[in-house]
């Protein structure tokens, strides 16, 4: 039981990373993109392939996962820029499915539907961080979340974040204020992809194996749900959203009813959450964070 809660918290962290990226794209720039499953998959496979096939250390595979995911973020961001709303959602959903199909069929690299097993565990200063010892892993993944939260939240509070919000509010006015709309949209895609790639690396290390079946479009839908539920444009809120969605999706197992409640229940519930939130509380549980003056990080003797 207690172990189960730790498991939920670990998955909360992994998905919170994706939700943080999604929040930049959807909460700030206002783009309804459904790509996170694809970048998550890419990140997972980068870590799996580099560590199993090429014997890389996990810590070196993480930046590679971020880099390669961002590259695909750029690739998907550029052509879909002119699409809006539903059209963008459909096009980006297609991207995730293409990634999954490639992973399924590129046998020589990905080992096809069998996936890659026996991924070496993470070690840090000689200490092994094994997914079997959940406490250690929990601390590790939440450190990643804290770092991502800090970086993205700072970014959002800088003038770049303001430019992204201006684009969301009115693209034409933003471009008439000297903002390069195309460039910023692509950057949002790149950064959102990078952090989802890192989430993928952690996922690979938690399961110690990767299979294409783990990266269906449901992952993207779940991440979107986390952002909508918590509150678009609020990084704390989307982490809360990640927890609630993970809690709901493991609830049947938690109370020992997984035999009674079919797995499809989750999908119905997520759909319902999206609809209900859109109608009654479109701003999410916590709502958008009001832009305010950023605070100094270090100030001698002052408030921090």
């Amino acid at each position: 039981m207690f172990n189960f809660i730790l498991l939920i918290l670990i998955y909360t962290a992994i998905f919170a990373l994706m939700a943080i990226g999604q929040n930049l794209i959807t909460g700030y720039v206002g783009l309804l993109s459904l790509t996170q499953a694809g970048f998550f998959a890419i990140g997972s496979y980068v870590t799996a392939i580099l560590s199993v096939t090429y014997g890389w250390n996990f810590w070196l595979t993480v930046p590679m996962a971020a880099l390669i995911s961002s590259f695909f973020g750029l690739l998907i961001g550029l052509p879909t820029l002119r699409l809006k709303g539903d059209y963008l959602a459909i096009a980006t959903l297609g991207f995730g499915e293409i990634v999954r199909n490639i992973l399924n069929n590129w046998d020589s690299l990905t080992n096809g539907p069998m996936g890659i097993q026996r991924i070496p565990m993470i070690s840090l200063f000689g200490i092994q961080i094994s997914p079997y010892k959940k406490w250690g892993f929990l601390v590790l993944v939440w450190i990643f979340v804290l770092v991502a939260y800090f970086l993205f939240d700072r970014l959002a509070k800088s003038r770049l974040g303001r430019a992204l919000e201006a684009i969301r509010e009115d693209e034409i006015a933003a471009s008439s204020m000297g903002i390069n709309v195309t460039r910023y949209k692509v950057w949002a895609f790149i950064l959102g992809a990078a952090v989802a790639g890192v989430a993928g690396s952690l996922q690979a290390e938690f399961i110690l194996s990767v299979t294409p079946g783990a990266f269906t479009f449901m992952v993207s839908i779940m991440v979107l749900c986390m952002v909508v539920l918590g509150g678009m444009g609020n990084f704390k809120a989307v982490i809360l959203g990640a927890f609630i969605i993970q809690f709901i999706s493991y609830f049947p197992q938690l109370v020992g009813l997984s035999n009674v409640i079919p797995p499809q229940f989750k999908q119905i519930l997520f759909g319902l959450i999206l609809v209900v939130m859109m109608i009654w509380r479109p701003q999410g549980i916590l709502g958008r964070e009001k832009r305010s003056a950023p605070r100094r990080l270090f100030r001698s003797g002052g408030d921090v």
Partner: protein
Amino acid sequence: MMLLETTKLTRAYGGVVAVSQVDFQVREGLITGLIGPNGAGKTTLFNNMTGLDTPTSGKVYFKGADITNRSAHKICRMGIARTFQNIRLFKELSVLENVMVGLHFKTGKSSTTGRVMAAFLSYLKVVDEYELMNESAIKWLEFFQLESLKDELAKNLPYGHQRELEIARALATDPTILFLDEPAAGMNPSETDSLMKTIRRIRDLGITVVLIEHDMKLVMNICDTITVLNYGQNIAQGTPAEIRHNPKVVEAYLGKEET
């Protein structure tokens, strides 16, 4: 040399020729009026000069440089700012933040380091940068006496203030030319009066103003020169007195209103 001019600018939407062979000139330091009946092509001409629309044929020159196919953000960065006929504020952002968006690219440019480096530095210096932008934004709000409303969301401002905020935001980009598309639309007489004074104050800052306006009293009062469009064509230009007595204009435009 004209500060800005179009030569034989044409914009057709399918069969509709919104702007036809227009030569439009803006002389530095003056207030230029652009008038004409509804649907005459005034807004279309603005859009084609500010990069939001591309002419079917013809050219746009700014300080002698051909800017015909340049994108809107580049044109803004060259020193051309504008407001919109249907106000386009960033509704969910505060009044202050709206003006700060106008300061966005200037703040980035102050750094001489490379682009990536500049972005990284501005990231580290979020607070310094904010304080700097805050200070100039407040100055522009004070210009319109909007500073006490700085924390309101833009969408909650009364109409007249929204128009003023849009001008403040445009001024924050530090333009050479300011295009105003019907700034007095929806304003009451006293607001229009104060707008008139504001436009003169903007001119006194050394900014060249071009405005589209249906309020004839305002146009005749503050414009140094006026261009008249009718059915997409430039039918007259001259001083307010000349325009008032131009038979073509009276027939096309004023005649309709004054009889």
